[in-house]
């Protein structure tokens, strides 16, 4: 007798994605899809996908989606959540989108403690536009706009959004995870589930940063890219819980 031990999540549409080989977006979509199914929120959730590789996330995740202008997802999600307070609302933003052009929106949505969840995909580069330097690009990392490597004197230093946003009182739960290998993937899924659960309790903003690979624009093989996330990126962006007001409340 055959036993099904693994199958495509019901939360994903049965379509092929446009993501490059070795890209982590597909894996992270799967985690979100599984959590939405497990929490029985697939029918009511609203996702927000702003400009970047993930702008088409609504074609892959099988729930309602609103596409947002570049960087504006936290404002768009604020509008949605305020008029649909009982629905799960989440954004899915890249690092160029969230840490650069949308830095203002995410700071203030967090400061207001908006009751939606931010899934922040940090791959240290602009993916869709072809590999330009992002605020999250590592020192020395070569991109199409920092061709000799990111120079702190010319380009400044990497921005740690999870740590920065955790200083705001509106942040209820903030964790940095990665999709780079299986054990980390399980942690990432737990973080997303916790964020969604706390969102529905309405205690403040919830934020999960996912370090992820962009083999195409990094000029690496998928395997090397995943290994680099763990070996190098996570040195600059330490994994772990940055803030959890539910834990702090405990004696």
């Amino acid at each position, binding site marked *: 007798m055959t036993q099904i031990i693994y199958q495509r999540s019901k939360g994903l549409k049965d379509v092929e994605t446009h993501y490059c080989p070795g890209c982590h977006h597909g894996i992270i979509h799967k985690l979100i899809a599984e959590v939405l199914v497990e929490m029985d929120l*697939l*029918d*009511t*959730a*609203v996702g*927000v996908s702003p400009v970047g590789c993930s*702008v*088409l996330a*609504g*074609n892959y995740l*099988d*729930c*309602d*989606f*609103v*596409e*947002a*202008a570049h960087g*504006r997802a*936290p*404002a*768009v*999600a*604020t*509008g*949605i*959540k*305020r*008029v*649909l307070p009982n*629905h799960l609302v989440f954004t899915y933003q890249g690092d160029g989108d969230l840490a650069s052009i949308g830095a*203002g*929106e995410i*700071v*203030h949505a967090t400061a*207001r403690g908006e009751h939606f969840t931010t899934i922040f995909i940090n791959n240290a580069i602009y993916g869709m536009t072809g590999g330009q330097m992002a605020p999250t690009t590592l020192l020395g990392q070569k991109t199409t706009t920092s061709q000799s490597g990111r120079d702190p004197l010319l380009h400044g230093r990497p921005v740690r959004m999870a740590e920065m946003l955790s200083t705001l009182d509106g942040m209820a739960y903030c964790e940095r995870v990665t999709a780079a290998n299986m054990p980390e993937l399980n942690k990432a899924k737990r973080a997303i589930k916790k964020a969604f659960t706390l969102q529905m309790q309405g205690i403040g903003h919830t934020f999960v940063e996912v370090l992820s690979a962009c083999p195409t624009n990094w000029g690496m093989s998928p395997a090397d890219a995943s290994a680099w996330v763990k070996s190098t990126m996570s040195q600059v962006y330490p994994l772990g819980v940055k803030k959890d007001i539910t834990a702090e409340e405990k004696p």
Partner: protein
Amino acid sequence: MQKELWKGNEAIAEAAIRAGCRAYFGYPITPQNEIPEYMSKRMPESGGVFVQAESELAAINMVYGAAAAGARAMTSSSSPGISLMQEGISYLVGSDLPAVIVNMMRGGPGLGTIQPGQADYYQATRSPGHGDGHMPVLAPSGIQEAVDLMWDAFEMADKYLTPVMVVADGMIGQMMEPIVWNRTEPLPEADKPWAANGRDGEGQTHFVSSLRLQSSENEQFVHTLKEKYEEITKNEVRYEAVGCKNADILIAAFGTTARIASTAIRKLEKEGIRAGLFRPITLWPFPYEALKELALQESVKAVLTVEMSLGQMHEDVRLSVLDKKPTPFYGRTGGMVPEPKDIAEKVREVIKEAGK
């Protein structure tokens, strides 16, 4: 019906709530601050949502989100803030979303001044933001009309799935006038099967988006916009023509300027000059045909445009009259307001010139 004394900005905010607006997002900027202030108190009282956004950029995108989720939403600002909102308005157009934006125009460019201006005419009527778009633009010339037009604005937004802009200036926003509440009932809830508010009865999901990566598909979408704009142009052109029949001269003016022109017209009447006032209420769609017909009357010697700008609506007036009559212009700009005596003097000059 009982008359009530209302300040312009507050009357507009109250009218929006009474018309059924349930979400307001805004950022402080003079001369429209009474709108967010009033909304912050009254919107929650009436079961709606108020958020003071961190910027106009965020405000218009909150409107975008609320509209995408199916709520009747609006924002308000003044010229520099409206410039920041252009991105979001273009996305509203590109996603067929209904929303209302109030622009209490001030003198520009740049930070300019907080005094009245009408120099955002091009920005409002040509194409909001980037791309091939339009939006209905309503221009009240008093508080009663501003109040009544708020119902029309939300009605048009829902009917045509489009952003609608209401333009006035600090004069109308700050002054008080007696009004009556001609309409009291909120607009019926529009059916929004496209709204991103959860799977529908048939299990279908929704994806509100302005992205169409295939250019052929995008072109097709822009053509559907064109059809929508033709429909709006057919149904929604509004204007007021006072004393235009057999007039010696027509004065084309909107909003505050039209009020000032009326005072000049009364002055001229005593001197035996019959000046008619042609006042567009929809700046887009512009009442080209109506103005053309009146301008072509044999008695009309010229069509004088009066604006608080260097002459922006003047272009639409000229497009209406098409060189068949002289189309002189008189304007003050940068926050300066024309006086009735100046308009009257310009009319005398034009009449004299035409008599030669």
